[in-house]
């Protein structure tokens, strides 16, 4: 049996909460055209899609929307909002659904990586001195075995370098040989660069965890080190 929707009974409190945080999200402008859903690779997973998620929000199905695990399957790739004729900001809705979960209930893998990053400066939790040792060891190996790069400089915390480069921590930690090709390219073009030792890793899992305080802390520590200690005018996050 179908039932009419009782508009007077709807209390979309969660929608109001998210709107306060994302004033330009345009949730009430949705035309239900489905362009978002047609172009979303996560449509149908867990019987959810962007259009359905937005209907739930607008109809005040607050409990259901907060519970959906789909919020962790959507990658916030933003294809939907770029295609949307009314620019309804579904990625920021998803971010705020994630943020509405109690921190300890959020996916363990993301949570662990975020906590490691806050503690150690990288999501793998590797001590900074190990990172520096690896960098120096791989560089020495290249200088020794590849004679045309005998003069290649690789530095950490060199003050006044033009570029501060940060790189995904899995590269130095699990596949250090992958560092060399980039360094050789930088050497050939004569780039003036250094690795910062503070928050040196390029990833930020706290952002994926929707931990506002966490990702801001990581960024602020990094920016403070690059701006005030190293005084590098440019930051480069690698491929």
């Amino acid at each position, binding site marked *: 049996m179908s039932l009419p929707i009782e508009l007077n009974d709807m209390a979309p409190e969660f929608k109001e909460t998210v709107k306060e945080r994302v004033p330009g999200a345009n949730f009430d402008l949705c035309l239900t055209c489905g362009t978002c859903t047609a172009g979303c690779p996560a449509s149908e997973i867990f019987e959810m899609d962007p259009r359905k998620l937005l209907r739930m929000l607008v109809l005040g199905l607050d409990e259901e929307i907060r519970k959906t695990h789909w919020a962790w399957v959507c990658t916030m*790739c933003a294809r939907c909002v770029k295609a949307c004729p009314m620019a309804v900001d579904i990625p920021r809705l998803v971010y705020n659904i994630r943020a509405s979960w109690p921190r300890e209930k959020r996916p363990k893998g993301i949570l662990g990586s975020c906590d490691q990053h806050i503690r150690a400066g990288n999501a793998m939790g590797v001590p900074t001195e190990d990172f520096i040792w690896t960098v120096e060891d791989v560089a020495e190996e290249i200088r020794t075995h590849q004679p045309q790069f005998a003069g290649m400089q690789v530095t950490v915390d060199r003050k006044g370098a033009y570029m501060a480069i940060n790189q995904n921590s899995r590269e130095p930690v699990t596949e250090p040989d992958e560092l060399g090709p980039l360094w050789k390219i930088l050497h050939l073009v004569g780039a003036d660069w250094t690795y910062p030792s503070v928050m040196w890793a390029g990833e930020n899992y706290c952002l994926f965890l929707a931990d506002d305080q966490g990702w801001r802390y990581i960024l602020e520590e990094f920016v403070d080190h690059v701006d005030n200690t190293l005084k590098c005018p440019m930051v480069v996050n690698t491929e």
Partner: protein
Amino acid sequence: MYAQWIREGKLPVNSDWNKDLKIKFTVQDPCNMVRKSLGQSMADDLRFVAKSIVGEENFIDMVPSGINNYCCGGGGGALQAGYTDARRAYGKVKFNQIQATGANYVFAPCHNCHAQIEDIGHHYGGHYNVVHIWTMMCLSMGILGENERTYLGDDLKALGLGKEVQP
């Protein structure tokens, strides 16, 4: 920056190594780098770099691509979120796109995309390899060391070893 350095003549890349081999390449446009920040000009630069390294005729784009590209399904923490089946179902769209190009290699200039595209390749039985740009760039300049070839297939494992570059 790679594109700028190639245009300025600072990187002697060329695609001669692939003239006869005709190994096909495609590129993944990372959402964060293309759609969400630097836009279509970044996607265009990516293609300029890729074509400079592997040859215009050996580059095949995915459809759609650039700012309208599909996410690989590895972003937003998905690789660490624990919903493996859902992540792979998401990635099926990307896998089909790659298969349709017929490419032997996928450039993935983002660590997350790299890991996800490798994983869906293994999971769905694809035969492509996933590479960083820096790997192929160094290969094309004859300066890729023997220990820097983890992501190359057997067809390229030994290519150019022993050659020296004259900068």
